[in-house]
């Protein structure tokens, strides 16, 4: 099946995102909205993972083995921003989500080309949630940054 690589990639990136959201929630427990909403959003990613795993299994693909082994998500590469790492982490999270969004896009495109309507439907169902996650991380950056950058 030609779409295996993109499914593997998606599973990896969505796993990493789920972990990133959990890390963000834990690390910024005193930022209550970030803390609570990040956990809600992590649940979406975890549901996606469960569905991805089930989809893979039906296609003879054991996606659980593709879990990330690389560096822990939200390891700050550039901690120059003020705000106790919050802006840095949100910025990094935003990039993670953007990556996942691209992977859903790739899956949808591949599924269309392969005329795989099951995968196409799957991607169309899940991708909007990723876009909502992306909108959220962008919104939190936009709302919180003016105060944190000027204080």
């Amino acid at each position, binding site marked *: 099946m030609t779409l295996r690589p993109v499914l593997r990639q998606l599973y990896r990136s969505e796993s990493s995102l789920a972990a990133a959201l959990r890390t963000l929630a834990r690390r910024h427990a*005193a*930022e*209550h*909205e970030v803390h*609570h*909403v990040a*956990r*809600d*959003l992590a*649940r979406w990613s975890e549901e996606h993972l469960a569905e991805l795993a089930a989809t893979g299994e039906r296609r003879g693909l054991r996606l659980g083995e593709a879990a990330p082994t690389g560096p822990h998500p939200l390891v700050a590469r550039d901690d120059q921003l003020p705000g*106790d790492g919050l802006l840095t982490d949100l910025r990094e999270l935003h990039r993670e989500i953007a990556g996942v969004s691209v992977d859903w896009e790739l899956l949808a495109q591949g599924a269309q080309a392969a005329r795989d309507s099951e995968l196409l439907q799957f991607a169309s169902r899940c991708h909007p949630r990723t876009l*909502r*996650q992306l*909108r*959220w991380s*962008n*919104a*939190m950056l*936009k*709302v919180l940054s*003016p*105060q*944190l950058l*000027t*204080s």
Partner: protein
Amino acid sequence: MPTRDAISDPWGARTPYGQGEQWPARVDASLADGVTAESVDRWVRSASLLHSNGDALDIAVKDGRIAGVRGREDDRVNRGRLDPKDLYAWQANDAADRLTRPLVRDGDRLVESDWDTAMGRIVEHSKELLAQRGPGSIGFYTTGQLFLEEYYTLTAIARGGIGTNHLDGNTRLCTATAAEALKESFGCDGQPGSYTDVDHADVLALYGHNVAETQGVLWQRMLDRAAGADPPAILCVDPRRTPVARAATLHLAPLPGTNLALLNGLLHEILEHDWVDHDYVREHTVGFAELAERVRQYPPERVARICGVPERDLREAAALLGGAERLLSTVLQGFYQSHQASAAAVQVNNVHLVRGMLGRPGAGVLQMNGQPTAQNTRECGANGDLTGFRNWANDAHVRDLARLWNVPEERIPHYGPPTHLMQLLRYAEQGSIRLLWISGTNPAVSLPELSRVREILRQRRLFVVVQDIFRTETAEFADVVLPAATWGEKTGTFTNADRTVHLSERAVDPPGDAVADLGIFLDYARRMDFRDNDGEPFPPWHDAESAYAAWQRASKGRPCDYSALGYDKLRELGGIQWPCDDEHPDGTERLYADGRFFAAPDYCEDYGKDLVTGAPLERSDYAALNPHGKAMIKAAEYLPAHETPDAEFPFFLITGRTLVHFHTRTKTGRTPELRDAEPEVWVEISRADAAAHGITDGTPTVLTSPRGRIRARARVSGIRDGVLFVPFHYGYWDDADGEHDRAANELTITDWDPASKQPLFKTGAAALRPEEGAP
């Protein structure tokens, strides 16, 4: 003496009336001992400042003091009636411990001072912060209990004078979700319905709205319909067996935190049975298909499981809503202060949109307010929006406001939504806000997780100004305390939950050196020497009437249009509903009667948010979704609450209100009849839970949560199993032992609805046990 003992008889005698008839008048009054109606020197026009109902009344003046109140028979809101708080709490104006002098901090004490010293300290601190840290270091936290003129002035000072984005009201705690739900569905704040819808409805649906205790006179109107010919069916949604639940045709008691699932289930049934006005949906709304797809996932079997409500009751409730010909829905804190608040409140709007139940007699929505002047906090822009329901994200609206104020556009912050209270508190906690000016509210009792709130207010680096009429728990943290005048001692207007505006005139002098909030704000502006583009003092107005005239210009052409509603008209006619402009000189009873909304992209107050994540939408998203400014049907998925009971904390805890008290009892706790009717905090527990814990009525108990611990006597009640209720009114000013073991908010969680930013006082976990040594 009052015309009735309103403690034992809170709602008075029935005056039954039938569907479509006018509600009969009944005049309630209360006068000080020894004073008769004939011996009163003057009657002064006003309305109640103790809840959001706006009961019109006259203040009796005898020998220069307030000597009682009498309901105004001719007013559309109450037709003469008064509730227990109205009848008694005027006495608190004369309480012996009113603040009469400014206080300033001297080490760990507050000492009496004078206005020059107190204002001098505030101004010195403000100027220093502006010079060193900029406008973002100053924040204002106001209330839902000042007058319109005062909010408008404070807003002008904060946004147009200082240029800070940090201004919010305690309306965030009571009414933010009402505003958000209206903006999400209709593009703009503004109550669609009218109290007169009670006169016409055949079904009343009350969602988390214990109207019998929060708006006693509106409840009397409902009781009178229920006692007359063609009584309406009443649907009550509340985990407690409230007076409303007892009078209801059908009572649903969902588990805390599941309101959205419940509403999705009701909408599922309404769509499944096609109780849908397809013409209305097609002509006046967008988004129906998304709702249909979403609620398909909420069949009654699933919803019954989530909410802990019998499937049969769900189907019956949906049939009531689906069969109604004139449906009036009301919503309050049971939804607004609970998990997924905005999403759930929006689904109530959706019921009306899919059923075409808007803008005609009996067919309306009342997204209620808690506090008496909360509506004005919102209209004036002191509650997270710009003045006159302008849209902070619409540059043309900001430009318009800057032109109106004659200040530079860039001085009005609009790079993001105005800072909401809980974020403002966080900035203070982090040290980026260094001056917090608190007017007319008591966060040291009313905010969640009080140990955290006290830590924030106690910081030495935070300069706290408290402007109030009593030395509240919050005042103890202040660097400067300013004594304010209150209701009956100042003139101004305010607007109730159904857009009825009343004028409240000064009847007596304030005590000592106390000054009206308007005077305090204007004094600050003059001492700060704020100037407009022409170098003239800003704001340019100088008293209540000139502030109101400025507001009339600011509101002209906006949905909340007051332009044809001057003081003279309010004096002549009494309560009038906005919009009141040249086209509608007598006001407007119902919004959206013609199926037209304030939702056009260029006109709307808000582009909306993701109801689950709270992320704001951009203008382009909004315009694509709703180019023609129709009403928006927005669907949302249910998520489990963020904190649910577990082995250590096995109960859901909800906090709330009681009939005889208001907020933190600053006035009602100083009113003998009200104070003595409910002198102490209590906890309500179900019969089964009480039995399981060896608790009976009156047992002293200890409640704990992950945040704190309080003590309260048990009241075994009809609350649903697994849920505890504690009233939030009780703090520490009249509790001598110095322990923080009385306020419900010692226990509550810091969490808020991501869309409305309203804190969740009704979705947390707690444990309860009999106090050791208790019998």
